[in-house]
């Protein structure tokens, strides 16, 4: 089978995002890094670890869960140095996140229809621009659908991203997002395009009528192709606190999510909320966004993510 992740791992590039992520974390004087000096394993250390996890937005429950496991392990494995404890915590975190690692394989259908949703300003349109480039880099043809017919210049923004990788964007001057996406799927079928990615307007789950609109878009996509959408991605901003959980829940209930994209990890926000998501509603994390450039998108790798978070 076409193995997407393996192909994408260009070690040089991988190292660079890892380095950037780590650099970002370091520049804040990362609390996590700071606590792992050469301290002996005592209560104060656990307390500080708790502090560090909370400060990464992991949330109280996931933090408690991780620390309980860590404690058990310290006893069981007779860990003595802070270094060992650190490695054990990174391992526990990686284990918690591992189920979110899932290959994104857009070759199972043609056209493979991807629907992208999320709250306002999370990074949907930008991530679509990057994803299109990424897919193209893997030899797939892509068509974009400008399904955000609401926000000012949303269409122009997506068109600019399309232009950067010479990818066509289907848009209408009119207002019906479902119709635009339907047209794009029809066009992709006629042209033999591999992947269609549909942008949608940002919305908060409290806007119930807009959540209904999303469901309608999904239904119309299924009219164009009964097996579609083949992927429904929720874009989350790594800056988001505990509300990210509510977002995953609401969008999952409305659309049935197949994956997440966690953006803006190049900043000082650590995206620890993903640990809380892994614990309460484990939707696979397909990609992470690590910058505003077109190549700043990477498949999620649990172990590296955990290491970067704790570095």
């Amino acid at each position, binding site marked *: 089978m076409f193995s997407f992740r393996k192909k994408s791992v260009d070690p040089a590039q991988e190292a660079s995002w890892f380095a950037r992520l780590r650099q970002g974390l370091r520049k804040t004087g990362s609390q996590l890094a700071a606590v792992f000096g050469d301290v002996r394993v005592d209560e104060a250390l656990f307390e500080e670890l708790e502090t560090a996890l909370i*400060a990464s937005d992991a949330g109280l429950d996931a933090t408690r869960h991780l620390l309980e496991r860590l404690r058990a392990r310290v006893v069981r494995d007779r860990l003595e140095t802070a270094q060992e404890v650190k490695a054990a915590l990174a391992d526990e975190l990686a284990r918690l996140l591992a189920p979110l690692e899932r290959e994104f394989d857009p070759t199972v259908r043609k056209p493979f229809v991807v629907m992208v949703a999320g*709250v306002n300003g999370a990074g949907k349109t930008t991530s679509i621009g990057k994803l299109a480039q990424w897919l193209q880099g893997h030899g797939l043809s892509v068509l974009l659908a400008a399904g955000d017919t*609401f926000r000012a210049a949303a269409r122009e*923004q997506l068109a600019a991203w399309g232009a950067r990788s010479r990818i066509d964007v289907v848009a209408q001057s009119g207002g019906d997002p479902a119709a635009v996406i339907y047209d794009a799927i029809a066009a992709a079928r006629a042209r033999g395009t591999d992947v269609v990615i549909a942008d949608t307007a940002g919305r908060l789950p409290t*806007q119930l009528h807009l959540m209904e609109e999303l469901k309608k878009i999904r239904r119309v996509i299924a009219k164009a192709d009964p097996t579609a959408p083949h992927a429904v991605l929720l874009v989350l*901003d790594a800056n988001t*606190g505990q509300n990210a959980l509510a977002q995953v829940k609401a969008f999952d209930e409305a659309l049935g999510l197949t994956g997440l994209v966690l953006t*803006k990890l190049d900043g000082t926000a650590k995206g620890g909320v993903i640990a809380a998501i892994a614990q309460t509603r484990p939707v696979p994390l397909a990609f992470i966004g690590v910058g505003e450039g077109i190549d700043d998108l990477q498949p999620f790798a649990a172990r590296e993510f955990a290491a970067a978070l704790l570095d």
Partner: protein
Amino acid sequence: MLDNLTQRLARAMKTIRGEARLTEANIADALREVRMALLEADVALPVVREFIAQVKEKALGEEVVGSLTPGQALVGVVQRELTALMGGAAAGLELAVAPPAVILMAGLQGSGKTTTTGKLAKHLKGELRKKPLVVSCDVYRPAAIEQLKTVAAQAGVDFFPSTAGEKPVDIARRALEHARTHYHDVLLVDTAGRLGIDEPMMKEIAELEAALAPAETLFVVDAMQGQDAVNVAKAFGAALPLTGVILTKLDGDARGGAALSVRHVTGKPIKFAGVGEKLDGLEAFHPERMAARILGMGDILSLVEEARKGVDEAEAKRLAEKVRKGKGFDLEDFKGQIQQMKKMGGFASLVDKLPAQFAQAAAQSPQALDDRALARVEGIINSMTRAERARPELIKASRKRRIATGAGVPVQEVNRLLNQFAEMQKMMKQMQKGGLQKMMRAMKHLLPGGPR
């Protein structure tokens, strides 16, 4: 879902009922609950720590007066301190300089700067009768300038064109000159989103600030932001002499602890709240409401305010009074409420303002939030006589049939409405007894067509 802090504290402090004073020992558990509540609301940890220490200091030795339990007394202290920390009364824009007064927008990517620029321009032009000019110095984000242009047109304000090929500081200088020569009294400068650790970009905005000498430098913060709010606020506060904060996306259901973090770090007033994507979604910021929201007590006050906006004020007051007293509230009033609800943009917009617990309950019964259900209820009430509306107990079988026929609904729907109304009356009595929690539980069942 999270419990109301009051409830949690009551639980934590059960053991110490009957004590006359708050002591270190008797508030330890309760303070742990406060700490957890604040963390769940995304208040940053260092801020939580400092706050708890402060509450402890203020609370110790406080007398538990009258009928209060120690738990209630502590909630009182917490809410008082939180409100104080959140800042005094709502602060407006300070534009008392030789025109054009410059407003510089700053913040992370996607926080809402461009939209808020449009909202402020509209506010300046409308309420404050100014002649604003807007300009975009965002030469990075695709179609950012186009976005501001569209937003300016929607706000009906003048837009100063710029291009992605220019240097931001050059754009700013040209715009300022244009504002001066064309007698604009305010220039709003939108900027690209940037990370606090992006040194060249932080330097760029510092240069913009130096070139423009703004009357207001506003830091735009997403209400959904988590723990990192302290780091970002520190970085922006260090690079720029901020004069205020705008908290956006408060129409969501985030508890908004970032408000406290940012306020604590910058020490600057939160001047406005963004409560919608449209340009009229800008409100004055209310510290006491925000405190209640962070503590999970719901945004009841905003609801009342919303009821006032665009709606007959006297009528709203009369209703509020009736609701408060829990008596004399009849079907005619119920209908009035439905009409007001419609004016406010229907159920969806109202639900946004409700306490998380209730919003959740409401969301679980989607059919309950159907505005068509509202219209049906209105239809039923319309088919009643004045006497029936005032005294629903008059409505027996034959009257029910008549009303159902008149409204074109099955008799069961009339029954359901009458039952709901009876529950609502009961709820209002409970509310009068001060049981906010009880009221919210009761309200779950009150939505037309909602679960029984």
